[in-house]
C-alpha cells in the first residue's frame, strides 16, 4: 500500500498535494476534499444519508493535524473539522 511522504497545502490552502512513496503525486482541491469529507456530517451513516455539500468553491484549508499513523484531520476555513482522511481515502479521491 502506498504511503504518503509529503502532505502540503498550497495556493493559500486551496490545493492539497500529497506525494506517495511509490512516486505518485496527487493534487486535490480544498473544495473537493470539503464536499467529499469522510465525516459523518457529510457521509451520514449510510450512502442514502449522504449530504450534497455545495457552495464551497472558495473553501480553504487552514490546518492539518496527523491522526495516529493512518490519517490526517483537515480543518477548513468554514469551520468543518470532523473529517479524517486516511491515506487510502486520499488516494481514492484522486483516482
Amino acid at each position, binding site marked *: 500500500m502506498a504511503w504518503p*511522504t509529503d*502532505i*502540503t*497545502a498550497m495556493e493559500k490552502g486551496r490545493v492539497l498535494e500529497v506525494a506517495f512513496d511509490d512516486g505518485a503525486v496527487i493534487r486535490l482541491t480544498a473544495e473537493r476534499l470539503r464536499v467529499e469529507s469522510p465525516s459523518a456530517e457529510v457521509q451520514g451513516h449510510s450512502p442514502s444519508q449522504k449530504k450534497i455539500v455545495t457552495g464551497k468553491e472558495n473553501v480553504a484549508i487552514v*490546518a492539518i493535524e*496527523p491522526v495516529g499513523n*493512518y490519517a490526517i484531520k483537515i480543518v477548513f476555513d468554514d469551520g468543518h473539522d470532523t473529517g479524517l482522511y486516511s491515506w487510502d481515502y486520499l488516494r481514492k479521491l484522486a483516482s
Partner: protein
Amino acid sequence: MVSRDDVMAALASIPGPDGRASLPDSGALSGVTIRDGKVFVAIAIDPTRAKAMEPMRAEAEAAVRAIPGVAGAVVTLTAEAARAVAGASPGHAHAGHAHESKAPPPVRHGRPSEPLPGVKHIIAVASGKGGVGKSTVACNLAVGLAKLGLAVGVLDADLFGPSMPKLFGLHSKPGLAPDGKRLIPLESVGVKVMSIGFLIDEGAPVVWRGPMVVSALNQLLREVVWGELDVLVVDMPPGTGDTQLTMAQNVPLAGAVIVSTPQDLALIDARRGIAMFNQVKVPLLGVVENMSYFVCPHCGGRTDIFSHGGARKEAEKLGVPFLGEVPLDIAIRANSDEGRPVIASMPDSAQAEALLQIARRVADTLATGATGAKPAPRIRIL
C-alpha cells in the same frame, strides 16, 4: 473585513523562528483562521525552543491585534509541523519515532495524535477475545522489558475491567504532581503503572458510554507524570471499539502485540484485532500464544487444553511475527493473583523465561523498527 492578506502583511515585519526569514516566508505559519473578526494564528516551532520563541509569539499577537478591524487575536506556538519535519529527517526510521522530543509541547495540551512528551514508544497489547490472558502477558511483558534495562510504564486501558492493580499488587491512590493537576503513577518492580482501578474502589463498576471512555483514556494517558520512558505498554480491553480507536487516533502507536489462545474461538477474534490494526496502520509487533499447553504437575504429562500451535499458524498465515508460547500454568496464575509478576517473582523458572523471550523479541523489534512501520509524512501549509 479582515483578510488573510492583512494578517500576512502585519506579520511580514516579524522575523520567524530562525530569526532571519519573516514569519510568512519562514514556512512556520501552520494555520491562519479568521472568524467574526477574530484571528487565530499557529506558528510551528521546535518544541525544545518554546521558551525562546515566546517573545516572537507575543510580538506576532500584538501585530495582528493592531490590524484595524480585528476584534481579537490569538497566536499559539505548536510543535506540529516541526515534529513532522523531524520525522522525515534521517535517523528517524519509523512512525513511532516521531515522539522523541524531550520537551513538553508548548501549548494546547492533549491535542489529537500529539505524542506523549518523554515517551519513546507506545505499544498496545490487544487480543480481540477476552479472557485469553492479555493483561497477564502485558504485565509480564512490561516487567520483562524493564528487566532488559528499559524504562517502562503500563497504562491500563481496560476501564471496565482494570486488571493492573491486582497484577502488580498495587492498591494505594496515586498522588498529585506539584502542578496539582497531573497524577503520579504508582510503581512496582521497576514499572510505572496507571489504572482507573487506583481511582475507584475495587468492585465498583465503571458504567459509562463511549464519550466518557474516550475522555478518561485521554486523561490517564496525558494527565499523568510518566517521565522519561522507553516503552509505554498499553493493556487494551478486548474488542475493537472506542478504546482501540481512541488509542489508534490519539497517539502514534509504535506497534501492537496480539495475544490469543490456540483455540479457534479465540483466533477468530485475534484475526479481527489484527485486521483493525492494519486498517489504522499500526504495525504488528507479533502474536503471543498464551495457554499454549499444560504440563501436569503430578504426572508431568502434557495436555493441549486449548489445542496448540494455532496462534503460530495464524501469525505465519498473516505474515506477522510469532513472539512465543506461554504455557497454561498454575505458578503464573497464582503469582498473578498475588500481584507478583512471575518474571520478577520466579526469575529462573521456565515460565519466566518464556515471557522474557517475548519481551526480548519486542525490544529488538522496537530497536530496529517494526515491519511495515513507515515514517510519518511531512505536513506543511505553504
